[in-house]
């Protein structure tokens, strides 16, 4: 199989004007799975938890503690966003490792493809992360203080403001390309290794990809969180 190195996601069909790519399909599957897991975990919440509730509590409490260590009193607002990034990305990454991905084809196109191996998906998340961060910044600082970060009458700070604006776009690129690059490269590596010898040999790479999937989800979450915290903090540099 020599299809691994295709940057564009394959389009399976169209719903109206929306091209349904294999990555978009996977993102819907991930959403559905997360919905089902959430509903099952909180179906009958008990004060003495067991099974899935216990497991999800562990994950959410851990995430909440990490977020509250960094975000402090803004945890309640930031947590749902950053943790949804985490859960969405980690589920998408790990589901992409299941057998059948990129191998089951439909009219010559693979039906399933790891969500993050499509720049559309990662860039979409990065854009949303940036926009939400700026909305939070306006919410916490007020419009005037928010603008003061970028525009200033002092030429030096004006220059710094321009640099900051450039940095915002860099963030966007780094967030999206980091996630995309890691997962896409992982896909390519797995396809190549499986092409060389499909038995046992890919196993270590699968372990590696499991770790990478977790790390990338955590990195995306932590970076978004840090950007949110940084932008919503009143900066004292101008005094």
């Amino acid at each position: 199989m020599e299809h691994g190195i295709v940057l564009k996601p394959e389009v399976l069909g169209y719903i109206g004007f929306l091209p349904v790519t294999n990555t978009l399909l996977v993102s819907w599957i991930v959403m559905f799975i997360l919905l089902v897991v959430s509903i099952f975990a909180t179906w009958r919440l008990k004060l003495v938890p067991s099974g899935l509730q216990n497991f999800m509590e562990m994950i959410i409490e851990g995430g909440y503690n990490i977020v509250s260590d960094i975000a402090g009193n803004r945890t309640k607002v930031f947590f749902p966003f950053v943790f949804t990034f985490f859960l969405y990305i980690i589920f998408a990454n790990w589901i992409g490792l299941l057998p059948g991905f990129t191998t089951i084809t439909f009219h010559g196109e693979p039906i399933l493809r790891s969500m993050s191996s499509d720049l559309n998906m990662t860039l979409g998340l990065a854009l949303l992360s940036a926009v939400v961060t700026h909305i939070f910044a306006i919410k916490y600082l007020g419009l005037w203080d928010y603008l003061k970060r970028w525009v200033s009458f002092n030429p030096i700070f004006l220059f710094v403001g321009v640099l900051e604006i450039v940095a915002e776009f860099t963030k966007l690129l780094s967030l999206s390309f980091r996630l995309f690059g890691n997962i896409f490269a992982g896909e390519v590596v797995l396809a190549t290794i499986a092409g060389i010898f499909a038995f046992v040999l890919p196993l270590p790479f699968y372990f590696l990809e499991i770790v990478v999937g977790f790390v990338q989800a955590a990195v995306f979450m932590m970076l978004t969180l840090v950007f949110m915290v940084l932008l919503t903090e009143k900066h004292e540099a101008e005094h």
Partner: protein
Amino acid sequence: MEKILSEFGVQPVLLAAQVVNFLILLFILKKFLYGPILKVLQKRKDVIAESLRNAEEIEKKLKVANEEADKIIAKALEEAKKILDDSNKTGAQILADTNTAAEEILQKAKEESSKFIEFERIKLNQEVRENIGRLVFVAFEKITGKILTEEDKKKLTEKSLKNLS
């Protein structure tokens, strides 16, 4: 830029689709996962804090109750001791009383018996005197061969009694 983006297959509609995906997922997770679970975590925290507080209170109460119980026991012991002392005292009193009563009774009995003995003795004395008198009469009659009259008898009796006493 355009070329790079088209090479990666970036389409605005797909970006928008992903944004919508994320927002839907955010809503779902907030409603079904974060909300309920964070609530239940908070509730559990409250329950644990409350039960700890309750346990502390119970311990405090237990301590007070123990102290009270100790006090009551000490009091009861004291009372029991008092009762024992009292009963000992009364017992001794009763014993003493009975002793004196018994002594009195004994004394009385002694007196009665001595009186009785005295009476008996007097009676015996009288009898002896009578008998002696008769004996004297008989002996006198035998010796003298004279029958005594009443007057003689009287004289003789008095005489011999004088001699006797």
